[in-house]
């Protein structure tokens, strides 16, 4: 691997440039016309302008991204997260053009990317799943299927995609009838696949996911789990590693399940296996596989000392993982706060604009992954993530305390951000005691905070 095209933008592009630098690989950044002056563009060894600001004509165009890789004579391509990162068509196109795709092969991505397909593999591997239905034909099929399941509440989910789109909690037949076509339409629009299915809804759950790295030599390792229960509208806001308060035996069972599932899938690359854990019964169920690097990968890097993006580059070159499972130690506790350019008091409306001053303290155990700097522009065409503020300390209380001190000194002048919400969350006794469940932020924290 001599030269790699980064088919992404924002903080993850900066992150991948860094990994390329570390591995001695030339980095070429594909940018839209909106990003020619971005931090990643400044740091990359070369920049190729692929299209106008609109993502559909730039970052979402398989043709243009691959054309850029050929144009700059790249022999590899890293898709980052979001955009084209889970599109098997991009993997196919790379393969046709002899470009090493940093991620799993197309067939595995197809299998892992379908929630129903992955669930089937999980069931065969003996991993607990949500006992969900198959894909539903129509609303009557859904009503019949619901009757066969234990009881309401149920969760209506899209088989394709992620990010909570197409997801609806249904508490009775009426909800189901009302929600079915909405979910299906939303999934169709978002992912080009309107298939939806039902599974039992766990009221008090934690979102626990396992980081996997698998090389082309058949080695599959996990790097421990993350807790991403602090969510709003199924979007992660704060992530932690490891899963504090999980009994070690349970945690280990979840980690092992993730490894087994990836073995069964024949998985290659970095991936994440997501689970829900019922906080009352301590039962866990498989949710889905994310066949890419995740936004929250740095907290796992902090507690393991393993550079996940560099490992991705190694795997894509056919090299073995640089460590063995028994070398992986989960050391201390790490927390990540996603700082978004949003106005929390206006329903988290995005607030694009120019960052006049960007300030984050420097300190031991403090890491900030961002594209922000004085004068950086938060463009209105893309997502609102500005920075990931990450801390690492000896244990969860110490990490919470450190994050509070960091957030107190963090700010972006010129745009509205979610820093205030993070400060309030970190100061909340329920959060500090932890762990919270996936509904806590929306049902308990935010209603109280917004009335202050």
């Amino acid at each position: 691997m001599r030269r790699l095209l980064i088919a992404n933008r924002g903080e993850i592009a900066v992150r991948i440039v860094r990994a390329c630098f570390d591995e001695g690989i030339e980095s070429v950044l594909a940018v839209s016309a909106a990003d020619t002056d971005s931090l990643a563009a400044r740091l990359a060894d070369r920049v190729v302008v692929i299209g106008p600001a609109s993502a559909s004509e730039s970052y979402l165009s398989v043709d243009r991204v691959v054309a850029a890789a050929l144009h700059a004579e790249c022999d590899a391509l890293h898709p980052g997260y979001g955009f084209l990162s889970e599109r098997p068509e991009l993997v196919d196109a790379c393969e046709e053009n002899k470009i090493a795709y940093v991620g799993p092969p197309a067939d595995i991505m197809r299998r892992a990317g379908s929630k129903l397909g992955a669930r089937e593999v999980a069931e065969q591997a003996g991993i607990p799943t949500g006992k969900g239905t198959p894909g539903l034909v129509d609303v009557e099929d859904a009503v019949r299927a619901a009757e066969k399941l234990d009881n309401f509440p149920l969760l209506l989910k899209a088989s394709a995609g992620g990010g909570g789109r197409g997801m609806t909690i249904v508490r009775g037949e009426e909800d189901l009838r009302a929600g079915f076509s909405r979910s299906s339409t939303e999934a169709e629009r978002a992912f080009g696949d309107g298939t939806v299915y039902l599974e039992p809804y766990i009221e008090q759950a934690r979102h626990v996911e396992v980081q996997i790295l698998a090389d082309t030599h058949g080695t599959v390792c996990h790097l421990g789990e993350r807790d991403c229960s602090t969510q709003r509208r199924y979007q992660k806001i704060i992530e932690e590693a490891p899963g504090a308060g999980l009994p070690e035996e349970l945690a280990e069972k979840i980690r092992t399940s993730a490894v087994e599932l990836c073995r069964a899938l024949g998985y290659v690359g970095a991936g994440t296996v997501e689970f829900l854990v019922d906080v009352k019964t301590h039962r866990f169920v498989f949710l889905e596989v994310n066949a890419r690097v995740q936004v929250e990968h740095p907290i796992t890097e902090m507690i393991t000392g393993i550079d996940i993006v560099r490992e991705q580059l190694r795997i894509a070159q056919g090299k073995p993982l640089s460590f063995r499972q028994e070398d992986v130690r989960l050391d201390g506790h790490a927390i990540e706060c996603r700082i978004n350019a949003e106005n929390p008091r206006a329903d988290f409306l995005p607030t694009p604009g120019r960052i006049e001053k960007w300030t984050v303290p420097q300190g031991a155990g403090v890491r900030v992954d961002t594209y922000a700097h004085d004068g950086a522009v938060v463009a209105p065409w893309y997502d609102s993530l500005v920075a990931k503020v990450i801390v690492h300390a000896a244990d969860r209380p110490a990490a919470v305390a450190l994050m509070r001190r960091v957030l107190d000194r963090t700010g972006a002048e010129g745009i509205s951000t979610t820093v205030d919400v993070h400060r309030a969350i970190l100061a909340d006794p329920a959060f500090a005691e932890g762990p919270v469940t996936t509904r806590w932020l929306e049902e308990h924290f935010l209603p109280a905070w917004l009335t202050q």
Partner: protein
Amino acid sequence: MTLSPADIKIIVATLQDSEWDEAEVVVGDVRVAVARNGASLGAPAAPAAVPAPPPAPAAAPVPPPPAALAAPQAAPAPVSEPEVPAEGGHVITAPSVGVFWRAPEPGAPPFVEVGSKVAAGDTIGIVEVMKLMSNVTADVAGTVTAVHVENAGAVEYGTPLVTIRPEN
């Protein structure tokens, strides 16, 4: 006076509820201009600093040609170094990264040469992106004064392709 203060009030409120950071409304002898969020009124100058619509530097209607991009010393040799178009004249730029074809097929005469007369809508070349051919058309009528990319040359979004001296 073409507008009453009450009219102006409505206009200000309308603009406020819009997403514009800068706006100007002229009705007859009345001009209402407003700005916010760092935008500044009637600032026609200062290319570098002034975002006209909010995400301006990015949104600038004419994207910077790739030649202007920062290329650190360590960068691999640039793949394409498009000529900088001569000043004056109307520049047609590439709509996408890709390969520029000057002729409809190998061996055929090019769509345009320096000196060709073109009408608005005439094809001046093709940009190919992964086997997908897109015609690039002139958006003004005039005379071609320069062709900036050779046949089969690599282009990026915004790369100048041809310059046209518009008809009067």
